[in-house]
């Protein structure tokens, strides 16, 4: 539609160009071109604005999605361990840090699950866990770095007295080390501001907790 219109005005302009009268069609052409450019520009801008968030948000196989899914699984086990310790540990300090870890990480799970929903992605990926990490940590029985085996979880559940504290502290220490390893991998591979922000918070929290866990380990040795 626009193309023929432009052609017409072109032809009008050419013979008239040398004369005074040439100015009128020329400016008409200019106005028309400007109007078309404006409309097309607005349309492009509108479409761009509409699509940019959709096209730039993390996809199903992205590092961000992989991190959100796998860190959710990783956190979920930390929450499980911590709630066992909160219920059954002996040292009040151990129970205190346990409930802190449990509620903190459960909250982070909520944030990560919200990302996935906002990105239009399923909480379950199409690829095996940890495939977003470049060093390709092999996952055996669904266990990511630092995660406890089902046998270790059963032992923790069945432990009595100070033994709960000791096992929890050992397991959680390894768990945090593995978690920080995963966080570092994500930080090295994403520039998504929100993911970077949350990952940095997680890392700082877990590093502080590592020191506190180590201190409590000395205490629990008795």
């Amino acid at each position, binding site marked *: 539609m626009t193309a023929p219109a432009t052609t017409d005005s072109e032809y009008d302009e050419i013979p008239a160009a040398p004369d005074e009268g040439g100015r009128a069609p020329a400016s008409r052409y200019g106005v028309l071109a400007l109007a078309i450019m404006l409309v097309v520009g607005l349309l492009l801008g509108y479409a761009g604005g509409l699509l940019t968030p959709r096209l730039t948000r993390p996809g199903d196989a992205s590092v961000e999605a992989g991190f959100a899914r796998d860190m959710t699984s990783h956190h979920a086990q930390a929450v499980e361990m911590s709630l066992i310790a909160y219920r059954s540990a002996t040292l009040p300090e151990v129970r205190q840090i346990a409930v802190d870890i449990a509620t903190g990480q459960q909250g982070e799970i909520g944030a990560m699950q919200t990302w996935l929903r906002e990105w239009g992605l399923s909480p379950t990926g199409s690829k095996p866990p940890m495939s977003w990490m470049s060093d390709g940590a092999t996952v055996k*029985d669904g266990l990511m770095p630092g995660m406890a085996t089902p046998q270790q979880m059963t032992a923790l559940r069945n432990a009595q007295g100070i033994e709960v504290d000791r096992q929890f502290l050992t397991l959680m220490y390894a768990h945090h080390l593995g978690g920080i390893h995963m966080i570092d991998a994500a930080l090295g591979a994403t520039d998504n501001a929100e993911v970077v922000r949350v990952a940095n918070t997680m890392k700082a929290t877990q590093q502080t907790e590592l020191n506190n866990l180590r201190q409590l380990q000395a205490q629990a040795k008795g």
Partner: protein
Amino acid sequence: MSISTPGGPERRPTVVSTGKKPAAGRPASGAKAGSGKPTGSPRAGGKGPRKPVTPVKVSQGRAWGPIALFVAVGVLAAGIIGYGAWASFQGSKPWDKRANAIDGIVNIRKTDKASLEYESHKSGPLTYKYSPPVGGVHNAAWQNCMGDVYDAPIASEHAVHSLEHGAVWITYRPDLPKDQVDKLASKVRGVEKMMMSPYEGLDKPISLQAWGYQLKLDNADDSRIDEFIKDLRVNASVEGPTALCNTGITATGTTPRELQQQQPTQ
């Protein structure tokens, strides 16, 4: 205040530059270009198809330039809009639509919504309309669903509570060959919001449950298993993605247990 002031001058140049374009054909702008670059020849080289417009007869070339530009821009715009529409249609297909598209799935949320409704937790043995059950009234305690692989049948009264929290429960007939059981277990172990147990009296070798959904299968190699898990794990949760799967019952046995009174701590 201080923000708007630097903004002004920054904006102005762009306004000036757009003003230049319509003026390009006029002598004034020609003079400007000439002042910038002393010789006459840069005129032609400087602004490709636009400048040669001078008094000469090159009218045809001048006409096609803008046309091609507008067509190109138009096609690009249409392409972007079209792709966006297509992508958003594909990508935003919600999980329940995808689940419904699984061949053979039974959507009890649609076909028998009433069977999923309940008023409150109930203790003791409960009866269920579907076997294995897919929802409805259940015990106050849930079965631990942190990727637990149970080697003996579990109580449906607890399992249904796990479904309510977004778990996918894989059940299999006790006579399912071990390699098939192992294949199923590999999809469960270490994955929260997943659990698995043998189930007596199944009419098919394998049955998958999520709250309000069921899919019965003959073979652990069936690709619909992964599709069911991808679409419904966590998504089917009645209580959102943070409903717990830990601190549940970890024991097997089909008789529901009652929550123990908290023991005084050691």
